[in-house]
Structure formats: structure tokens, C-alpha cells
């Protein structure tokens, strides 16, 4: 549990089959088909309101699609999600971590040691006994990552996880993403930061107005995007 080891069996493919999502009669995501496979870092991009977070919530299973299917081709993998604004419980940093171990039935005797190890991995040891909710934004986000780490996820979702952080904290989160990936975790993240996407992406899913415009390898997307909206987006001509 301490260090996620590279998974022996390949992570099941996530398949979105003609997925649509409507809210109060308004279509927020339309007829999206997408397959995410392997241990890759997929970055979902698009302007504000394109449906990035929504797509991620559908993929993670937090929301059911209005129509279409979201399914794992094989055994449903262990998943974790890091949100834009970390939701931490009203307890100490350490207790936030032992909490997830408790709900995942880790024996009581092991919880504290595992939690301390995770805190150390994310440079939070000195903050172990501080109330989680008075930590700085960057510290809170690292604590959220440490919490995800303890779940030993096969797939990690990050929703705009760095958008409220300063450059140093952004770097810490990106390093953590690479650590997760190196230990065999598939990464699915949203960002509207082009440079971050270039640093992290293996492949890019580009959304615009609730529609999937393209899903390309990163080098293709950044050098020669196939969709005209993708082209406009990376050239900084905001498309709405």
C-alpha cells in the first residue's frame, strides 16, 4: 500500500459509447465516443464550458450519462480523483489520510504508518498534525494527492488540479502526477493551461461546445491539430 507498484495486469480500457449529457433540457455533452487505454497521460483540453469537467465526472462515474454508455472493458479499476478545490475533512492532515485507509478496511495497526509514509512522499510530514483546512492551497492539493496515493489507484483523474495554485505548487502537483504515472497509474486530467498540457500529455482529447473535436497523440495535437477549433485554441485564438 505504501508505494503503488506497477500493476501486473493491464488496466482495463475505459470506453465511452455515444455518451450524451443533458441538464434541464440543455445539451452539455453530445454523442461522445472515446476510448482511454494503457498507462497513458491523457489531457482533456478545451475552452471554459467545453465540457471537460463533465466528461471527467462521467468517466469517473460521479454522474450517469443521459444517454450512451460508460464502461470498463474488463475489471473496473481502482480510481481516484483530485478536484480543483480539494475537499478535505475537518480533521488533521494525518487523520484525513487514516480516514481513507479506514473506509478501505486497512487494518487499524497499519493505518498510521501508511499515512505518515504518504505524507513524507508528498513533503507534508511537518504538517501532519495541522488541521487540513487551514493549510495553504498548494499544501491542501498535495494532501489530496497523498490521499489519492493511498488508494493505490489504477486510474487517477485530476480536474483542473493546478488552476488555483502558484508556480511552485503547480510544479509540485505536476511532479506528483509523474510519480503516479511512473508507478503505473493511468492519468486523465483536464487543464486549460497549454504549457502544462505540453509538459504532461501523451495524448490530448479536445472538446469544444460539448462536442469531442479530436483525440490525438500530443505531438500531433500540438504541431498539426486535425480540427480547426483545436488549431485556433493552440494559437491562442480563444474559441467560444
Amino acid at each position: 500500500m505504501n508505494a503503488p507498484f506497477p500493476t501486473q495486469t493491464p488496466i482495463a480500457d475505459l470506453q465511452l459509447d455515444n455518451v450524451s449529457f443533458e441538464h434541464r433540457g440543455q445539451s452539455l455533452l453530445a454523442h461522445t465516443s472515446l476510448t482511454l487505454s494503457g498507462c497513458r497521460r491523457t489531457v482533456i483540453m478545451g475552452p471554459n464550458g467545453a465540457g471537460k469537467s463533465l466528461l471527467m465526472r462521467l468517466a469517473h462515474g460521479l454522474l450517469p450519462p443521459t444517454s450512451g454508455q460508460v464502461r470498463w472493458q474488463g475489471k473496473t479499476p481502482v480510481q481516484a480523483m483530485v478536484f480543483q478545490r480539494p475537499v478535505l475533512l475537518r480533521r488533521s492532515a494525518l487523520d484525513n489520510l487514516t480516514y481513507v485507509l479506514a473506509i478501505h478496511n486497512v487494518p487499524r495497526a497499519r493505518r498510521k504508518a501508511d499515512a505518515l509514509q504518504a505524507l513524507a512522499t508528498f513533503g507534508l510530514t511537518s504538517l501532519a498534525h495541522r488541521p487540513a483546512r487551514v493549510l495553504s492551497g498548494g499544501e491542501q492539493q498535495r494532501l489530496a494527492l497523498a490521499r489519492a496515493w493511498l488508494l493505490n489507484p489504477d486510474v487517477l483523474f485530476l480536474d483542473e488540479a493546478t488552476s488555483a495554485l502558484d508556480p511552485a505548487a503547480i510544479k509540485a502537483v505536476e511532479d506528483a502526477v509523474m510519480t503516479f504515472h511512473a508507478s503505473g497509474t493511468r492519468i486523465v486530467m483536464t487543464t486549460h493551461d497549454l504549457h502544462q498540457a505540453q509538459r504532461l500529455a501523451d495524448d490530448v482529447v479536445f472538446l469544444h461546445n460539448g462536442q469531442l473535436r479530436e483525440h490525438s497523440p500530443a505531438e500531433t495535437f500540438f504541431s498539426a491539430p486535425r480540427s480547426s477549433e483545436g488549431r485556433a485554441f493552440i494559437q491562442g485564438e480563444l474559441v467560444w
Partner: protein
Amino acid sequence: MPASDNPFLTALQLILHMDSDLFAIVSLSLQVSLVAVALAALVGLPLGAALALWRFPGRNGVIIVLNALMGLPPVVAGLCVYLLLSRAGPLGEWGLLFSPTAMVVAQWVLVLPIIASLTRQQVEALHGEYAEQLQSLGLSTARMMPTLLWDARVGLVTVMLAGFGRASAEVGAVMIVGGNIEGVTRVMTTSIVLETSKGNLPLALGLGIILLALVTLINALAHLMGETAKRRLG
């Protein structure tokens, strides 16, 4: 009981003389109200949390009824419990009428809607913030309940205080089901009513001052606890 024309002096004398009658009355008051609040919390906290988390047909109806019952007149609650416990009533065999137990039951009826209803509001607000994260961690709705109740604990202390305030201040219900029997079911509020009707106003007022002081003390303790927790937990 000692008596003087000045209610403050009377209150002071009562306390200083460690009057045993007074002590019995105060301790019965506290016991009845605290037990009623504790038992109401036992039911009201999970009930409120469940109402906050589950959607079912008729949910709004239940919420409206609970909210309305927060304003239930104590005499009505007392009357209902009286009918239930009186010799001819369905639970008459238990012989509970005019006992402290009957007073606890009556106050429980008064406090339960307050605790359940306010707990629902607190938990519902917190759930709005926590829902996605807890769902992402794989928690079922049932398993979210203890987490949300615990994380709402600072607010729930205030909820308990509201319940305790209701219980310790009411007189109608305990008067009807307790009967204000000296040494058995006489509590602060019923004593005050009695002394007032006897025209012993300084003593009545003195008792009132003691009651107010006690309630203030308990509220101060809870407030301090809440503030400490807030500072520690952020």
C-alpha cells in the same frame, strides 16, 4: 426555603445555604432535560442525516412536519404524552404518569423535532460540499452518514444547545405529565409557577435567576468548546 424581598438576594441565599430542596429541584431539572436531549439526539441525529441524504417520495412532507413540530406547544406535547401514559391510555399499565420518566418522554417529544430538523439542515449543507469527494472515495450513502455527522460536529453542538434550551425552559409539558409533586417531579420551572401562584414572587424570581445562570453556564461551556474546535479545525 429562605426568602427575602430581593430576588437576587434570595437567589444568593438559596445557593449559599446549599438548600437541599433547591438542590433536589435543580438536579432533577438538569437530569430530566439532559436525558431527554441525549435520547432525542440518539434518534434525531441519524434521522436528520438520513433525511438530508436520501430522496424518497414524501420527503418534503416529512421535512415540513418536522419543521412545524419545532413549534409544538409544550402543553400539547404534554397532553399527548399524558393521554398515552394515563391509566386509561395505551401505555397506562406501565404506571409512568407523574414520574420523572414521563417528564423525559414529554421533553423528548419536544426536543426531537428540533434536533432532527436542524441536523438535516447542517448535514445537507455539508453534503453539498463533500458529496463528490466522498462518492469518488467509494462511499455509499449510508457510510457517508457518520462522516458527515462527525464533520458537522461544531454546528451540531449548537443544535444540541437549541434542544437543551427548549427542554430546560418549558413548563407546560412537565407540569402536565409530572404533576409538580414535591420531592418527586418538582423541577425549576414548575417551582417557579407554584411560587408565583402562591404570591412568593422573590422566591420565584430567585429560582428563575438560578435557572438562567445554569443555562448560561452550559451554553458558555458549549460555546467555548465550539470556538476551540473551530480554531483547531479551520
